[in-house]
């Protein structure tokens, strides 16, 4: 294989696997570290049931404010109505500062300011909500 082909192959690999992180500025998260960070969420959330906050089961791909019968704020419902769907990117932005991302949310939490911690938390959520 000549150098041009090798370069093209490397570029293709980086593009396929590196783009999500490059574009969104996310580092691969560690679910084990993320589980410890999830301890900060357990005052209000659980994976399998609604509490003060909605359950996290089924989070990824779910439209914001869409769990039936959960008393969401108007702001959260409105965000969902406008098309907000939870994924790695939207969760990263929301978790950094919930009240800034969705003004009027009842999630009165300053946020997870460290980007690596957010990545770890998101990795954990992705792992545990798919079980």
């Amino acid at each position, binding site marked *: 294989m000549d150098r041009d082909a090798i370069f093209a192959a490397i570029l293709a690999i980086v593009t396929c696997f590196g783009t999500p992180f490059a574009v969104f500025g996310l580092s691969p998260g560690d679910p084990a570290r993320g589980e410890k*960070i999830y*301890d*900060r*969420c*357990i*005052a*209000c959330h659980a994976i399998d*049931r*609604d*509490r*003060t906050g909605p359950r996290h089961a089924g989070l990824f791909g779910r439209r914001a404010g869409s769990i039936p019968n959960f008393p969401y*704020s108007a702001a959260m419902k409105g965000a969902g109505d406008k098309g907000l769907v939870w994924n790695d990117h939207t969760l990263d932005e929301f978790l950094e500062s919930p*009240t800034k991302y969705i003004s*009027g*949310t*009842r*999630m*009165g*939490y*300053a*946020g997870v300011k460290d980007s690596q911690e957010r990545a770890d938390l998101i990795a954990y959520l992705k792992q545990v909500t798919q079980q």
Partner: protein
Amino acid sequence: MSDIFVPSFVLARRAFFSRGGKMALSATAVALLAGNEALATSYNQTAAASATGDVDILNTALGAEQEAIAAYQVGAESGLLKKPALDLAIAFQGHHKAHADLLAGTVKKLGGSPAEAKKVSDYHFPTNQLKTGADVLRFAAGLEKGAVSAYLGAIPLFDNRDLAKAAGSILGDEAMHWAVLRQALGEVPVPDAFVS
């Protein structure tokens, strides 16, 4: 439960808190939270959005406190806790009731409607996982740890600094609960230099 150690100073604190259930807050926080009309009026002059934000934060905290009250009720009624662990659970429930009363009163003072407690059955506590007294205490410890994190995350958001200080006082109480429960379980009561 013979293998759960409850420090005697905790039992003495129960008597202190049972006398009227009054919390020791700063003079400013007490004035605001106990109905100082001048302070309450001045709040109305701030931006409506900030008052609404504080009410929302307070109501979220109130919801968590109501859940803790219900959780301790379930724990106490489970039959799995024996003295002195049962006394501990009842004392801590009393503290959460005091927190809830304070939060609800403040929400009303700010013109909001306090969140209402759910029926105990609507909290869907994982009671099928609670087989021993230690399980109950560990469940409670998890809730207390969560409460510490929740208040830690909420305090920076309060527009009113007196409310932030009062919330800090509650955070301190939750942290003490967490540490005492850890010790009762035979765990290191204060595992780290910082909480998050």
